[in-house]
């Protein structure tokens, strides 16, 4: 028997990175908190209190450092180990709550609600969501908002509304033509609709379309002619017609980049080569995780584009880049590290003060789509098992527990390339030595 349609819920963690920092540091509750990007570059997460102070998303840290100190804002380097682990805990609770779900990002998860309630039990939806929200908060310490609606696009919209409500939940019900849905759509800005970017929102406004309700009411022929089948799908989803199902397989990535700024400028080859080897090993590991393969690898080395005062170096900045064919479709770390090391040695210019290295795999293919190359060496089952064992060890004991030798070679002056993370919080959940102590 077909289960009773229940639509979707989108569960979104509130100010996720800041919330993770607060879980183990309760004195941060009620205080403005921001998290910085890699290498303490710019603001990537703000608590509600920080937003209220007018701190902008993406603002360069060095420019507003004094302002943050004056406003007594708590500043953290990003601690992706902690955030990843906290995300896994939240997602585990959410995916256990329903038969079918889709982890959409580190802090968002769609839940399919079909079959959870009978048609006459719609009153049970909100209490269920409130209880789930409470459970996540109690078990992990992370506050979440839950939006429920007939389609994924409407659930995204409901979630935006939920974020503004003290209850943290919003149910638009299952009738897409209800007054509640129409009122929500009429009030909802175009650029916040899932699938409508800023450019489309500007173009639509120029055509006299100013809200989600306007967009939903446009004739299909208009939508198809101007926005193509994607526009038609967005409007249909806003009308309550389900066009997007849960994606059980991740959408294929088209390329893979691993890029980090060094903690300080480097002039010696050895630490740069070690950094690139680390990026290459990480790129291969990401591809293995996603079941993808690359055929080409590109290494780029860059000097600092900005002077200490933030001004652009212009012509003085230097960048060199080189790509190599791997000779086969691969996600084998050994092959990646060897190729990236050769490329680094080929493009390194002595005397330059390098600030950043990037490893880029421009074209990816799914493992299930690639036929092996007849002229390439056959990748043995042993090589695959070696990579699988490496992944198993690093996932259990941390990424630094097992490395390729090329990743750890240092320079004669002992130059280190690691990122600057002066304000990082402890790895409360993944490292025994950093467990929270109660005195």
């Amino acid at each position: 028997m077909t289960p009773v349609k229940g639509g979707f819920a989108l569960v979104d963690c509130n100010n996720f990175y800041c919330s993770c920092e607060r879980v183990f540091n309760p004195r941060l509750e009620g205080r403005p908190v921001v998290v910085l990007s890699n290498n303490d570059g710019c603001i990537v997460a703000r608590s509600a209190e920080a937003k209220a102070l007018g701190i902008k998303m993406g603002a360069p840290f060095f420019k507003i450092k004094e302002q943050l100190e004056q406003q007594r804002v708590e500043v953290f380097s990003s601690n992706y180990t902690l955030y990843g682990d906290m995300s896994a805990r939240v997602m585990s609770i959410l995916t256990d709550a329903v038969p079918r779900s889709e982890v959409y990002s580190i802090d968002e998860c769609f839940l399919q609600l079909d079959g959870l309630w009978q048609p006459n039990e719609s009153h049970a939806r909100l209490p269920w969501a409130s209880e789930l929200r409470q459970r996540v908060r109690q078990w992990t310490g992370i506050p979440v908002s839950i939006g429920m609606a007939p389609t994924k696009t409407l659930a995204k919209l409901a979630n935006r509304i939920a974020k503004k409500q003290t209850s943290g939940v919003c149910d638009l019900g299952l009738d897409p033509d209800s007054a509640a849905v129409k009122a929500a759509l009429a009030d909802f800005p175009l650029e916040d609709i899932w699938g409508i970017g800023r450019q489309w929102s500007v173009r639509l406004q120029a055509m006299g379309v100013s809200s989600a309700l306007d967009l939903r009411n446009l004739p299909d022929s208009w939508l198809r002619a101007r926005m193509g089948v994607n526009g038609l799908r967005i409007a249909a989803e806003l009308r309550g017609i389900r066009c997007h199902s849960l994606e059980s397989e991740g959408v294929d990535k088209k390329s893979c980049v691993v890029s980090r700024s060094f903690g300080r400028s480097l002039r010696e080859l050895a630490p740069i080569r070690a950094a690139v080897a680390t990026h290459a090993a990480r790129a291969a590991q990401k591809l293995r995780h996603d079941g993808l393969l690359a055929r080409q690898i590109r290494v780029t080395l860059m000097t600092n584009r900005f002077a200490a005062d933030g001004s652009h170096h212009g012509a003085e900045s230097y960048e060199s880049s080189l790509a190599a064919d791997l000779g086969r479709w691969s996600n084998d770390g050994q092959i990646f590290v060897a190729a990236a090391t050769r490329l680094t040695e080929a493009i390194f210019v002595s005397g330059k003060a390098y600030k950043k290295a990037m490893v880029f795999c421009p074209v990816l293919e799914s493992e299930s789509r690639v036929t092996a190359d007849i002229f390439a060496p056959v990748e043995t089952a042993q090589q695959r098992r070696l990579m699988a064992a490496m992944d198993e060890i690093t996932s259990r004991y941390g990424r630094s527990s097992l490395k390729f030798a090329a990743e750890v070679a240092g320079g004669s002056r002992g130059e280190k390339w690691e990122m600057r993370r002066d304000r990082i919080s402890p790895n409360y959940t993944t490292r025994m030595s950093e467990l929270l102590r109660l005195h």
Partner: protein
Amino acid sequence: MKITIEQSVLLKGIAHVQGIVEVKSTFPVLANILIQTKGSDLQLSTTDFTIDAVELIPCTTVSDKGSLTVNAHTLYGIVKKLADGTQVEIHKADDSDLVSIRAGRSVFKLPTIDSADFPEIRSEVALPNQFDLTISELKTIIDHTKFAMSTDDTRYYLNGLYIHVKDYKHENPESNEAPILRAVSTDGHRLARVELPLPEGAANIHPPGESGFIIPRKTILELRKLIDEDMGKDSLPIVKVSISNEFIRFSYGNVVITSKLVDGKFPDYERVIPTTNDKRLEVDCASFRLAVERVSTLSTELSKVVRLSLKDRTLTVNVSSSENGSGLDEIEADYNGEPMEVGFNWKYLLDVTDQIQGGIALFKLADSNGPAVISDISDQSAIYVLMPMRV
């Protein structure tokens, strides 16, 4: 220039040579067909710089000799739509840039480009080595290999058909095997190799033990189209093949196709044909094809893999995708190895089994990572190597 010619004769002639013409060419004159009077005949020529095609067709009348070039596809489109059996008049006055095509009450005036601007056609360049192939031999060579020719420009030396003489005696003086002509194609994922008894005159097309020739993909496909119209006729003309280190020429009836050879080195293909695969799977080819076709309905752009599970007398063919669900089909088979699973691109499996004319296909396998060798159990003159996919 002024001539008349029967519509069906003209149409057939243009049809034979117009495939060479690129739809979008950098040089305008390459979009044109060169039309020249040769005594009481008309010579039609096209080129894309790599391949030249020339055909001589009889005119009804030649009132005024001359030559012109006109857009090949436009002319073909017009002549195709003229009534059967009508006489077509082609007339270009010396002081005009337009050619008029007149048939019955239809008149077309088309722009021309001076025939002096047309590149030189190499149909008469002498090529030192010659041998003959029957149409059925040429068809066998092309049909068994064309699907595996590469289209990847980064490995341009695979974009064609490699032919060479396999001289067993040169490799091993004690061998009693007669030399043969081999044609090989590969796109890096599959390889097709077909053998023919060495035609008379072909023994010296290249020095023993040295590399053979790579004939461009387009030349092979045009040639196949050309011979197709005569297949099934009682008496089939012979195709005369002439070859040098730079060019190959196929002369067939009134058509001459001269093609540059690919300037590259074909990889050592013999190295990648496994000789020690000890697991043998024998399966009824028609049943296997049907099973693969059935389950491949569920394959998607994201996953083209068909999983073959081998166990004793059963072959299970299985496709599964999160989007479309899963499907499996079981067929009887004869298999002598340990139970194993191996995945192949379903399209490649069909391409190969399409070529197997006999009843039983033989798969020789090593393991799920290594290449498989596939052939008709009763005819080893053509073999196919197929690389697996991860399962």
